[in-house]
């Protein structure tokens, strides 16, 4: 199951690379290209981690703790 999910993710990101990132490279929109590549890198990493069933810490818990410590429950 994990392998199939990983394969699907890689395939989807490959398609994204062809249809979303490559045109920016061809048009020489460098700022857009690099931002897109960075965001793709982050999202690809998170997607792969999710496929491998790694528990990614949510930012919601620390915010929740901070607010309840200030205002009470």
């Amino acid at each position, binding site marked *: 199951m994990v392998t199939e999910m990983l394969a699907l993710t890689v395939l989807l990101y490959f398609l994204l690379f062809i249809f979303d990132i490559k045109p920016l490279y061809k048009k020489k929109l460098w700022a*857009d290209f690099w931002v897109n590549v960075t*965001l793709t890198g982050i999202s690809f990493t998170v997607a792969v981690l999710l496929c491998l069933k790694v528990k*990614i810490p949510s930012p919601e818990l620390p*915010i929740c703790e901070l*607010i*309840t410590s*200030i*205002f009470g429950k």
Partner: protein
Amino acid sequence: MRKEQIIDKEAICLLISFIIGSTLIVGVSGSSKNDAWLSSITGFVMAVPVLLIYSRILTLYPQKDLFDILTLVIGKIAGKFVTVVYTLYAFHLGSLVLRNFGEFMNSFAMPETPMIIPLVAMGMVCIIAARLGVEVLGRTTTYFLPGIFLILLIVQLLALPQLHINYLKPVLGNGITPVLKDGYSAFAFPFAETVVFMGVFDALKTPKSPKKVYFLGVVIAAAIITITTVRNIAVLGNMLGSFYFPSYEAVSRISIGNVIERIEITVSFVFVFGVFVKTSVCMMVAGKGIEKLLNLKSYRSIIIQIGVLMILFAQIIYDNIMQMRLWAFKVYPYYAFPMQVILPVIIWIIAEIKNRKIRKMYSNADQKAEDQQ
């Protein structure tokens, strides 16, 4: 490239769908029990001053969006910092709304399907809408909203036999404090969330109309939310707070002659449409924020990645539905306060001072020119 423009009617429809979107199904906070309808009115009353501030800021800088205004008002560096804050807020809000939808699908509509599937399906539609722009989204909403109103009206009428108006009594039986607390929660979610619209209302065709748009949109949405809450209380009574999705439960009890039953799908339809509009707007604003922050050519070139990140973030943000409710009603109002109230007030005050100075300068220059003549 031609600048996108929306007329007031489209903007009002967008605002209504944005506000009623997730609130109609998640409901207002349930701690005020049978006074929940009063808390939605209280929330609206609390929201009026901030709405005035949002519309005033937009009127002072016509044809400019939130991020342009930030740079103009508080300078380049501070402006960039606040842009980051608003971009993250829009991104987070979009993820929260997507997650609401995912939880709804997971607990009622498709319990055996993994949550990522509805999230991806909805996320893809939102990415397409955000990529097409606010003009297309505005027109789509204008076409769909009458249908949504019709559905809401028919469901209200069909619910009439199930209503127990005595459930609404005693009014203010638990005192005013729970109503005010829930009112504040209703203020933050959904009324003051309209701060996100400052990022797209640069597209308004008439530069002087933000006040009218904000007010009409929010008044209509508040009326719909209040009427729906009254119906939910009159059907469910004091149990309102014990359901995750009260509207869905209330409508599922409709049964007319054992023929018209199971019409809760109508609630899902309204919810899906609301989530679509809300997430698309948030996505667009997050994209515009990054565009202005990093001087990109267009937010469209990165919108797919923002959407994908939003979907993934929605997947990891909560562990379960109880956490979602705790966050939405207890934590979110405090978390969102700086973005919804403090920053807009600061921006408004500085903008007013700057505007006055500029006006004074111009009037002095005119005076000098007249004296010379």
